[in-house]
């Protein structure tokens, strides 16, 4: 082939590779004379650089033109069809094996990608996942990779079999396992999805189950995990040898006990002669090292070592006590309190810097921080101070939680003109640990202001001081209908409280309230009589005393522990109204394991007048119903009703079983008389009238009084609100469960509840003749507690802590509501944590 001398070399089609690189790789130069053969070898060598998809050599006179097509680079990797593993997790996996955007795209790259993705799914037990990748050409020599993932499903467990167990049946043992064969609950708990760590954990549970019941020689000989050919079910077999049951022969202590042996042996959960149980041995050692920790030996170690005598199947237990050195605390540090003051956390500490370290005080510190209710999570760790072996730092790490509510409303309503309302309440006001709330409402008819401030640490020991002021002025004249009664109140009180032990507090309060009362248009007799006797303006000097015991494990959403409160409020002599009210409330939380717990709540109250009040003033009555009391019933709607207004109605005669007797025409059919009202009345046993509908206007046979005229009786108009009573009984049972499908549940509480309760009175108003002529006793009020008057309801509720305050949604189904009860299905409230 003829050759020619190269005058110049020109490159075409370069985008990212530089001309210099091509010139270096090209074994020919300006001035060489080349023929066909040499050009071919040159382009072959250039191709080996791995940068080009295609190379063409052309000739333009004596100038060699090299036309190149570069290998494309990957510009985008799209993944679709993946649900179990997030896209960026998959991309990270690819990056680790060098497959990322910007890389030169070669055939092998495609295969490496699908292998890597399959590997990620296999690690999740999805053995039958399938990956399909396709390449999409993009302008400027780039390629986009579209990866389609068919995740398949996680191999579910078809069969778990334990071979070689005689003492305990397969069912009994498999109940303890986390892994289960596919069952009804699997969609929720996904417990039938195989994972190696879960199997290891279950094997450990199996071993403990035996070791805790005396089978100290128990051993898992071997385990087999096998997969069905279509890779969607897993078969697990555990081959075990149980060995014999061993008892404990004698128990000894060794090492430096620091504390009296007698005190340590009190903490033994195992006794001589008992069946050996590893859990009880470990529990004993834990308690003993905790006991030493309380005396400053934070690094104490206690190990219960069994010495096994196989012939007569007995075990000698020796507890080796190593107190380690008495430890001291150098610094107590707090982190995560972005807005809460350091002192608000530090004042909760029982453990001092510079003192000997007590595990109990350090743990109590964590519990008290939890109990503040300002923090979502509180963790503590005690690293050793470098360079010493007996000094530690105590580091508390908290995550703050919104603890308060904030809302404004501005509006205009015809009747009340411009409406302006704002209320802000913060339990941790500006991080100071003080509770502050301010409420303002203003429109033409109502002006109400209230302000409260509470400082839990008025003194360093936790003597608290709080005061609140309230002023409420409603111009009732302008209101059209006022139901029952309304009050305007002004006043304030001052409270002090102090701890009398690590968990109990006493508190006192003194206050002054002035109340103006306004009668509604239709008002029960009790109110009328009360206003006639007492007038409508009262000034009260009030004293309060309360004792509280709080051993809850957390302030917000507790899950364990108990809480009791007893309080008494007295309006002392010299006040216009003298009465007292006693109240007891209690909460028990029982953890049920995992995030489940059970709560029992009860609230009891009793009040009475004294001095020249022989009954509790009606507007001080207990009322029940609504969130925080008996859910499923409108708030304040339960309890005895007042003796309502009545109007006198004509009575009709009734037959033996209480139906109305009607005039009959000649054919025996009831006579129709258009002038007869659609409602007729009959008399009940109390002498009150009961309405019966008479829509087709039959003419009733009226009942005649002895003076010949038609007999009449009072027919009462039901009043809106319950009057309440001086006895309050409430109780509820709640099952607290983890809200499903939500990851971060720290600001969520979901419960199933059964509420029961009502208010009663032992001071029923006896209607006097002037009130109602024929009435012998009060139709809506029975004296004393009556079990079948207690209303119950079941339902579910969720509380969500938000910046504007705790939102509570409840849905309840009343169980034994009676006619006349006002019930609620769905209720929503802001600011109330049930």
């Amino acid at each position, binding site marked *: 082939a003829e050759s020619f001398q190269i005058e110049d070399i020109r490159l075409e089609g370069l985008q990212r590779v530089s001309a210099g690189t091509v010139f270096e790789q090209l074994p020919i130069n300006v001035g060489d004379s080349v023929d066909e053969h040499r050009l071919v070898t040159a382009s072959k060598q250039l191709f080996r650089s791995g940068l080009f998809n295609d190379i063409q050599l052309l000739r333009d006179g004596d100038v060699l033109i090299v036309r190149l097509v570069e290998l494309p680079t990957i510009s985008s990797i799209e993944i679709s069809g993946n649900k179990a593993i997030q896209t960026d997790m998959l991309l990270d996996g690819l990056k680790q094996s060098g497959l990322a955007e910007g890389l030169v795209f070669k055939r092998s790259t495609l295969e490496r990608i699908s292998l890597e993705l399959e*590997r990620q799914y*296999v*690690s999740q037990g999805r*053995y039958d996942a399938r990956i*399909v990748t*396709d*390449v*999409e*050409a993009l302008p400027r020599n780039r390629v986009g990779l579209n990866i*389609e993932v068919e995740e398949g499903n996680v191999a579910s467990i*078809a*069969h778990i*079999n334990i*071979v*070689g167990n005689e003492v305990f049946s397969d069912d009994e043992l498999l109940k303890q396992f986390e892994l289960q064969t*596919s069952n009804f609950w699997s969609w929720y708990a996904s417990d039938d999805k195989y994972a190696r760590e879960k199997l290891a954990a279950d094997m450990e549970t199996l071993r403990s189950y035996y070791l805790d019941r005396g089978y100290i020689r128990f051993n898992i*000989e*071997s385990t*087999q*995990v*096998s*997969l*069905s*050919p*279509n*890779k969607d*079910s897993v*078969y697990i*077999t555990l*081959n075990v040898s149980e060995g014999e049951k061993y008892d404990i022969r004698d128990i000894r202590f060794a090492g430096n006990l620091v504390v009296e042996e007698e005190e340590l042996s009190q903490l033994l959960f195992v006794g001589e002669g008992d069946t050996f149980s590893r859990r009880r041995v470990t529990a004993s050692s834990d308690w003993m090292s905790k006991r030493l920790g309380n005396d400053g030996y934070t690094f104490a170690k206690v190990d219960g070592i069994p010495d096994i005598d196989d012939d007569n199947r007995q075990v000698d237990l020796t507890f080796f006590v190593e107190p380690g050195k008495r430890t001291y605390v150098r610094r107590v540090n707090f982190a995560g309190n972005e807005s809460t003051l350091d002192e608000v956390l530090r004042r909760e500490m029982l453990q001092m810097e510079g003192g000997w370290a007590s595990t109990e005080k350090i743990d109590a510190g964590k519990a008290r921080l939890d109990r503040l209710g300002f923090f979502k999570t509180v963790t503590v760790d005690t690293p050793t101070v470098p360079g010493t072996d007996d000094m530690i730092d105590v580091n508390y790490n908290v995550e703050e939680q919104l603890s308060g509510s904030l809302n404004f409303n501005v509006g205009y309503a015809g009747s009340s003109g411009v409406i302006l309302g704002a209320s802000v309440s913060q339990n941790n006001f500006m991080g100071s640990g003080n509770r502050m709330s301010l409420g303002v409402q203003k429109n033409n008819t109502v002006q109400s202001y209230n302000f409260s401030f509470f400082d839990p640490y008025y003194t360093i020991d936790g003597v608290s001081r709080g005061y609140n002021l309230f002023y409420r002025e409603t111009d009732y004249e302008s209101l059209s209908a006022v139901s029952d009664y309304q009050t305007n109140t002004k006043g304030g009180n001052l409270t002090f409280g102090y701890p009398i032990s690590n968990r109990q507090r006493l508190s006192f309060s003194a206050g002054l309230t002035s109340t103006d009362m306004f009668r509604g248009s239709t008002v029960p007799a009790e109110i009328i009589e009360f206003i006639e006797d007492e007038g409508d303006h009262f000034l009260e000097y009030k004293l309060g005393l309360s004792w509280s015991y709080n051993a809850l494990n957390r302030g917000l959403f507790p899950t364990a522990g108990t809480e009791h409160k007893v309080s008494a409020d007295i309006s002392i002599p010299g006040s216009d109204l003298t009465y007292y009210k006693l109240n007891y409330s209690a909460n028990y939380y029982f953890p049920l394991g995992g995030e489940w717990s059970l709560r029992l709540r009860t609230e009891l109250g009793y009040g009475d007048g004294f001095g020249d009040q022989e009954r509790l003033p009606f507007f001080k009555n207990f009322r029940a119903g609504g969130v925080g009391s008996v859910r499923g019933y409108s708030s304040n709607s339960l309890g005895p009703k007042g003796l309502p207004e009545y109007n006198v109605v004509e009575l009709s005669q009734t037959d033996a079983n209480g139906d109305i007797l009607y005039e009959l025409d000649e054919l025996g059919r009831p006579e129709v008389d258009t002038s007869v009202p659609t409602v007729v009345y009959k008399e009940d046993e109390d002498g009150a009238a009961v309405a019966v509908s008479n829509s087709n206007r039959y003419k009733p046979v009226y009942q005649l009084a002895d003076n010949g005229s038609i007999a009449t009786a009072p027919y009462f108009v039901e009043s809106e609100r319950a009057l309440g009573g001086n006895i309050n009984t409430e109780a509820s049972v709640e099952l607290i469960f983890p809200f499903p499908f939500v990851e971060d549940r720290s600001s969520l509480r979901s419960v199933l509840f059964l509420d029961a309760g009502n208010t009663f009175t032992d001071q029923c108003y006896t209607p006097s003749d002037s009130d109602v002529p024929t009435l012998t006793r009060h139709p809506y009020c029975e004296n004393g507690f009556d079990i079948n008057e207690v209303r119950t309801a079941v339902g579910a509720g969720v509380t969500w802590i938000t910046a504007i305050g705790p939102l509570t949604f409840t849905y309840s189904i009343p169980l034994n509501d009676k006619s006349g009860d006002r019930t609620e299905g769905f209720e929503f409230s802001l600011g109330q944590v049930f």
Partner: protein
Amino acid sequence: CSSTPEQPQSSLSSIDDQLDVDVEWRLNLGQQAGTRLNRLRPAVQNDTVFMASADGRVLALELASGAEQWQLTLEQNIIGGVALAGDQLFVSTMDGMLHSISTAGELQWSSALASEAVASVASDAQRVFVHTIDGRLSAYQRDNGEQLWTYEHAMPVLSVRGTSSPLVLEQLVVTGFASGKVVALDKRLGIPRWDVRLAIPDGRSELERLVDVDGTPVWDNGVIYAASYHGKVAALSPRGEVRWQEDGSSYGHPVLALGSLYLSLDDGTLQAYDIYNGANQWTQTILQGKALGQVTVFDRYLAVADDEGFLYLLSLVDGELLARERMRPKPLHKNVPNSPEMTNWRGLRGRDFGLSAPMVATERGLLVTSNTGELLLLTVHADQ
């Protein structure tokens, strides 16, 4: 632009059945085997069929009519069997016990195994050999069940469900293991004579490293044939030399007929090899993508079934698909005594109509057990 490679659309529906398959009789054994993937198979002696049901019953039936001759109930679920040797039947149960039952229906002895025995046992005059899923091969006295020796083989972390039944020769007992090896042991002493590796585990995840030899090795005039998953099908001499080996990843074992070796591969392909040099005689890919079970030679055909309940009959000569029959299960009333699993059909998952257990060819017909716990005797005759 690129189109994603489709599943090979097998034009199954288009073939016209050249054979008719009739059901001579069908008997419901009452226990749904689907999810447990039991591979209980019947054993036939003259005119009696001995069969076990997963819920613990051993039955003897008349081969011709399916009529029950006797029935014995064990308290435990049966997971391995039925093996037949002389007048002794062997089954193994979930609690890791091996039971010997006389062909007249009396329980002779039961002895404890080291673990589950999913495959049926094999035996010779004095001994019975059991391969348990923990990788142990043990020998027991046939007359009283006493253990003679046990050989332990190292097991991988993950294996395919199912184990290879032992092949018993004069001096040797040959078994496939989950490690990808075929091992020959001295029958009397239990010491390994030779082993051959049929597959090499490679790849990073446990899944890629599966290499089970789950099919029972086959013996034919002086040559042992075996196949492994992710590995080779091979012909071995009694001294363990490899006469030939070819690619052939399968969950089961090869069968022999007309001088050829037939094997169903894990991707649904069926392959025939020349028994002398392993040369490929024919390859049938029409069933690719189906989950095929163990191939069986029956009459003049090659029979194989899949996990959707279809039975296929192919020509031994060229692999042509001659018949495709759907084994519709006879509906069973809702709940069956002492069977813990749900047995109403709606609750079962699709795969449970499948035919995963191996089939047994007899002169009167082909015995097939379905995942729904039914035993059927099928006969085949040319379509007139």
